[in-house]
């Protein structure tokens, strides 16, 4: 009964999933699709909706359909959707990607807002080659949040703030010290830049040195927390454990009402020094290149930018609107929070829109982490960062003449077709084919589905490994991607970040994981298999738990537990009298953290497989052995182990493949820290594809190489397995 | 084969008897030849259209169905009312078990369900594929009799495959002995037993197996080391293989203990040397040698009293119980 109820529920849900939702849309109205990546349930999202409603009220022939996207998937989604005509009419994003969008032809030029007062520098930041591409909506930059009950007077400088005496567990100056976005504000004060005007990496030299030294001093003196994340900074400040925090307008909605605080533009870094200039991000509305209704989209952008649209966003969304005229509104003028941010924004430095900007944060952050976590000499760390940046921005392989490859492919294809035809002429083959016909009816749909939706995309993906560049300047590059990977991009073969070193780490990762998965899994299964054990069911359910909870959540939980200052693991170590460990500062500890997490995730599977295998071993074997006088230990090694090996072998082989490609854990726990050394092949491939200038061809070549390695491995494993079976027979 | 007949296919494992049965059922398609059931040519028909029922060696009970559902499975598929189920169940004594699952039953009970499933169908032809080989000896004998009764009461046509010649002998209206894919002999069981057409049939039917001794026919006599017997009249001179069933011999020497007790065999006698005795009360098997050839004799219980290893015993055989085979072709002479 229960079974059929479950099956019925499945069916009903399926039917509902496949049925298209009723689409009762009037034909006359124009629907504008607007995409944004505001947080779920945030005031900004609400305000955008209200502003859109106001627009629709003024234009009753139009509808606005808002779509909130996950920030992590926003860019790749825009890049896929707009060229294929599935994109929005209008989308909202930060200004620093404007060059990228123009290069990819994702956006079209717009008119400047029809009224309101906009800063010329902001409009310029949204222009490429003299043409305006985005309508500025709001401004975001960092400022100093001060807890007024702990720190009534305004600090004269960040350094003075950092030197303030403070109670145990209270930090005077909280900010994400390892995040180059925040550190850039100090760098600017020291006269430095992350990126020079030509898009070159500039986080080197005396200014950078002075900046990093300063940050290092603050962290080491305990004024600034270690390994601070945005979440940590927020919680410290919200709970009264921080005198101040450097953050942007996004922090305010998460602060409790009871917290007495105010916002100040960032004070100078040192007493009487240069002004601290944070980066300014201008959030803008872009009309998408393939918009269905570009004119209406532009009108909506214009509506949102100034006047009532801007007022709604400022009042309901607490946005620092770009339109200066909005601040003539008495309510806004008297709003200390918004006007402070407005002042801070005026002093801030618009983030360069050079495509290299996004690539500068990763190496700069890595340099900071090297110094703050491992104590590496500053200049060495900076130099390493510069090297890393050069690596990321190396020129892509140039186009090659595809004729030779096409001819080769043609010849191979012809040969294949010819061989097939010859085989078909053979009557034995034909007879075999006729006999296979009934079987084909059983497998045809599966082969079709898997062929079309799994193998074809993988094949096309593999083909992109012969191409370089992206979007419109995609070109055939022959084997250049492979050559670059296998030659470690011209560096040392086992040098930092080289394919071979990462492969070595991946193999180590796979072997250790499997050994522990199998060891722990078998041990627990043996314990659970004891016939006299009580509470067996309860143990089993609890031990399967790691498998049942989505790994993207538990991996993050583990990452939190490995935090240097606030992690449970270090709390435990401290309670045991050991020194706390900075887990992500060294390869060995970061690798261990990944390993522990993945062992935790993977042992239940092996345990369950072993339990199944154990239950199929006949009991009388043990009785016979016991009669023969075998001890428990001998029984295990003589009976259990030999019978388990063939039963576990396929699961281990499968587990090896899964572990080899276990992206989630590495990406979420260590994130490759320190300095990409704990990266495995698949997470490295992901970075090349998505976080490092979208080098899809390069990432695809990685994927193909991973595939080839695994195929070789499985061939070898199958041969080994066959040998084991042979020996048994 | 005739309507209403019970034909037993018997032969050693691997002789093709199961394949033949499966071909009749339609589970395998023959490379050549055709299969007919009644008037119908069914060679290419799928099993479901042949109106046959089959009892498998493993019983092949549907593990997820109760006994009742197992019995009515075929009926439901043919849209036949399932009333017959209870009838069959009471016939086989399964009434109490109708709501059990196969895993909750003993081997004998499962076997009954497997038969019941076939009976409920009332097919044109029953097929049994070694249905008793998974039962213990006592149960096997019991079920064997039941099958025979069943056949008599249902009067339906049955084909029964077994490697057990006792089953074959007791059940068959007609026996088909198969070896290596070929039919060796076909006929009523006693005919086959009494007049085996080949060396193979002779050796296969009967337990313990027939003794074979290489002999020579000359001058109206059969001669081999350790025996001299008068040859059947129609026997031609030359090399033959002489077959003697263990059951067909008896002691020809005087009573145990008499003076003639240890007299070596003379003409018309077999000189049998005892190695091991298996007394079973009313009868005994004596394993030993005639000349250099191994020989088994079934003797009466009293006839082996006092015998021990190495004793010579004189045996005699009625002439009509001698089987002669061509040593080259293996056919009966």
């Amino acid at each position, binding site marked *: 009964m229960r079974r059929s109820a479950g099956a019925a529920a499945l069916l009903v849900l399926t039917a509902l999933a496949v049925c298209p939702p009723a689409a009762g849309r009037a034909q006359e109205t124009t629907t504008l699709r607007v995409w944004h990546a505001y947080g779920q*349930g945030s005031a900004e999202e609400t305000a955008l909706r209200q502003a859109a409603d106001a627009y629709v009220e003024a234009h009753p022939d139009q509808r606005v359909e808002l779509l909130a996207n996950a920030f992590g998937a926003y860019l790749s989604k825009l890049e896929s959707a707009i060229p294929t005509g599935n994109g929005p009419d209008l989308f909202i994003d930060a200004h620093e990607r404007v060059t990228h969008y123009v290069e990819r032809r994702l956006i079209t030029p717009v008119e400047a807002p029809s009224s309101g007062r906009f800063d010329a520098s902001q409009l310029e930041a949204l222009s490429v080659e003299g043409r305006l591409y985005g309508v500025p909506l709001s401004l975001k930059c960092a400022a100093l949040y001060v807890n007024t009950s702990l720190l009534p007077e305004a600090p004269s400088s960040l350094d003075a703030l950092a030197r303030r005496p403070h109670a145990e567990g209270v930090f005077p100056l909280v900010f994400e010290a390892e995040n180059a976005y925040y550190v850039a504000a100090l760098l600017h004060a020291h006269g430095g830049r992350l990126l020079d005007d030509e898009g070159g990496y500039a986080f080197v030299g005396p200014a950078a040195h002075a900046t990093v030294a300063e940050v290092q001093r603050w962290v080491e003196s305990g004024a600034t927390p270690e390994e601070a994340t945005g979440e940590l900074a927020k919680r410290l400040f919200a709970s009264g454990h921080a005198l101040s925090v450097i953050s942007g307008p996004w922090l305010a909605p998460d602060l409790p009402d009871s917290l007495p605080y105010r916002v100040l533009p960032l004070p100078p870094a040192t007493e009487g020094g240069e002004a601290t200039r944070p980066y300014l991000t201008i959030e803008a509305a872009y009309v998408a290149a393939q918009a269905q209704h570009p004119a209406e989209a532009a009108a909506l952008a214009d509506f949102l930018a100034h006047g009532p649209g801007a007022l709604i966003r400022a009042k309901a969304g607490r946005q620092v609107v770009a339109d200066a005229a909005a601040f003539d509104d008495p309510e806004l003028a008297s709003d200390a929070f918004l006007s402070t941010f407005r002042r801070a924004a005026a002093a801030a430095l618009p983030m360069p829109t050079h495509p290299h900007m996004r690539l500068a944060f990763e190496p700069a952050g890595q340099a900071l982490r090297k110094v703050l976590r491992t104590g590496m000499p500053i200049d060495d760390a900076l130099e390493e960062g510069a090297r890393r940046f050069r690596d990321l921005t190396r020129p892509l392989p140039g186009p090659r003449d595809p004729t030779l490859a096409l001819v080769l492919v043609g010849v191979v294809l012809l040969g294949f077709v010819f061989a097939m035809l010859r085989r078909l002429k053979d009557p034995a083959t034909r007879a075999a084919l006729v006999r296979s016909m009934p079987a084909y009816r059983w497998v045809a749909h599966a082969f079709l589905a898997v062929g079309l939706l799994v193998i074809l995309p993988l094949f096309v993906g593999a083909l992109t490994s012969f191409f370089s560049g992206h979007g419109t300047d995609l070109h055939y590059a022959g084997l250049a991607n492979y050559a670059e990977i296998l030659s470690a991009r011209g560096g040392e073969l086992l040098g930092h970040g080289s394919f071979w070193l990462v492969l070595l780490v991946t193999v180590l990762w796979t072997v250790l994981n499997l050994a522990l998965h199998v060891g722990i899994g078998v041990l627990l299964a043996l314990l659970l298999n004891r016939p006299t054990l009580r509470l067996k069911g309860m*143990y089993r359910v*609890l031990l399967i738990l790691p498998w049942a*909870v989505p790994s993207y959540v538990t991996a993050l939980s583990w990452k939190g537990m490995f935090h240097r200052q606030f992690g449970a693991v270090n709390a435990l170590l401290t309670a045991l009298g050991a020194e706390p460990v900075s887990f992500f500062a060294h390869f060995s500890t970061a690798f261990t953290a990944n390993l522990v997490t993945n062992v935790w995730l993977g042992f239940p599977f092996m345990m369950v497989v072993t339990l199944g295998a154990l239950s199929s071993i006949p009991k009388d074997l043990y009785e016979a052995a016991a009669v023969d006088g075998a001890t428990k230990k001998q029984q295990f090694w003589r009976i259990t182990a030999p019978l388990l090996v063939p039963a576990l072998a396929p699961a281990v082989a499968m587990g090896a493949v899964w572990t080899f490609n276990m992206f989630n854990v590495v990406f979420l726990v260590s994130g490759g820290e320190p300095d990409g050394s704990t990266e495995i092949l*698949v997470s490295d491939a992901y970075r090349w594809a998505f976080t490092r200038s979208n080098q899809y061809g390069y990432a695809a070549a990685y994927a193909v190489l991973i595939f080839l390695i695994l195929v070789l491995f499985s061939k070898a494993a199958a041969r080994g397995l066959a040998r084991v079976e042979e020996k048994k027979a | 084969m005739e309507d209403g007949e019970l034909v037993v296919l018997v032969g050693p494992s691997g002789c093709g008897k199961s394949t033949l049965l499966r071909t009749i059922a339609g589970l395998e398609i023959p490379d050549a030849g055709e299969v007919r059931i009644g008037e119908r040519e069914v060679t290419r028909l799928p099993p479901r259209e042949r109106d046959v029922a089959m009892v498998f060696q493993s019983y092949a009970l549907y593990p997820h169905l109760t006994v009742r559902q197992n019995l009515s499975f075929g009926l439901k598929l043919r849209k036949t009312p399932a009333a017959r189920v209870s009838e069959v169940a009471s016939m086989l004594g399964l009434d109490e078990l109708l709501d059990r699952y196969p895993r909750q039953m003993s081997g004998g009970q499962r076997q009954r369900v497997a038969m019941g499933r076939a009976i409920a169908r009332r097919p044109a032809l029953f097929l049994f594929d070694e249905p008793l080989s998974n039962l213990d000896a006592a149960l096997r004998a019991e079920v064997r009799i039941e099958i025979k009764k069943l056949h008599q009461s249902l009067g339906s046509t049955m084909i029964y495959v077994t490697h057990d010649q006792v089953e074959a002998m007791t059940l068959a209206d007609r026996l088909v002995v198969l070896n290596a894919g070929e039919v060796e002999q076909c006929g009523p069981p006693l005919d086959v037993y009494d007049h085996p057409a080949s060396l193979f049939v002779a050796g296969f039917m009967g337990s313990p197996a027939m003794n074979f001794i290489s002999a020579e026919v000359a001058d109206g006599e059969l001669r081999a080391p350790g025996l001299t017997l008068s040859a059947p009249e129609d026997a031609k001179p030359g090399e033959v293989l002489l077959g003697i069933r263990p059951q067909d011999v008896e002691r020809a020497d005087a009573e145990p203990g008499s003076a003639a007790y240890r007299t070596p065999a003379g003409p018309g006698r077999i000189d049998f040397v005892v190695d091991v005795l298996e007394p079973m009360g009313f009868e005994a098997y004596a394993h030993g040698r005639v000349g250099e050839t191994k020989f088994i004799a079934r003797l009466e219980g009293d006839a082996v009293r006092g015998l021990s290893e190495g004793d010579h015993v004189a045996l005699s055989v009625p002439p009509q119980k001698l089987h002669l085979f061509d040593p080259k072709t293996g056919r009966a002479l």
Partner: protein
Amino acid sequence: MRRQRGSLLASVGSHVALLIAVGFAIYPVLWVVSLALTAGGAPEAQIIPWPAHPSLDNFRAVAGQVDAERGWIFGQQLFNSLAIAAATTLAALAIATPAAYAMSRFDFVGKKGSMAALLATQMFPGVAAAIPLYLLLDALGMLDTRSGLVLVYATTAVPFAIFQMRGAFDAIPRDLEEAAMVDGATRFGAFVRVVLPAARPAMAVTALFAFMTAWNEFILAATFLSREEVFTLPVVLQRFVGEHDAHWGLFAAGAIIVSVPVMALFYWLQRHLVGGLTSGSVKG
């Protein structure tokens, strides 16, 4: 006497070992729960995963949103996730089981090659396939639909399901379906009525794997879906992690809600899990 003491010691020993393992297994999950129950509060290096001031605010914020225009949007998205995962499960089983049966029972030209190809799909990292898949779904006109996502998830789950089910079918005696065929079933009828029910444990486990594939996936869902009313829960969860700020409390609360159905399924199927997984993997 000595024997008994020995077994008492062994019994205590195994309970201690199992308790340690259970602690290891549930500790990080307890941290997720604790995070979900924490609304603000100071971060502290603590060993016991329990918030100082537990509150359900995060759960309320995640699941309780009702707005006038779209109604209870969380409910809608929960339903999407359930429907998509259920449909994926059914589709994957419907596609995979007949193929697995053929792989187990028939010989045909290209069988070895297709097994190798199926295995190969498990080894190729999916990184490179997302964009071609997007273009493909776009061409099929299924880009922004639940059915499109179901199709993609189901086919992703099929290769592993075929391996799993083939192993299970190999372990089922052929006699069973032959009996059914003699009893009057077609081969397909025998497959549906007899072979599939006999393979139920393995089917349950395969279904669980397929369900989890669909239930936890977010990269493809976030890329393919462009209407909020068809979003799945993992996509919604990702929206708690922004560029500058991440709401881990909300994320954890959402994650727990997402985990509950899977945990329930695991609990429900754990009996089958042991047998079902092995029959597949041992003989596959």
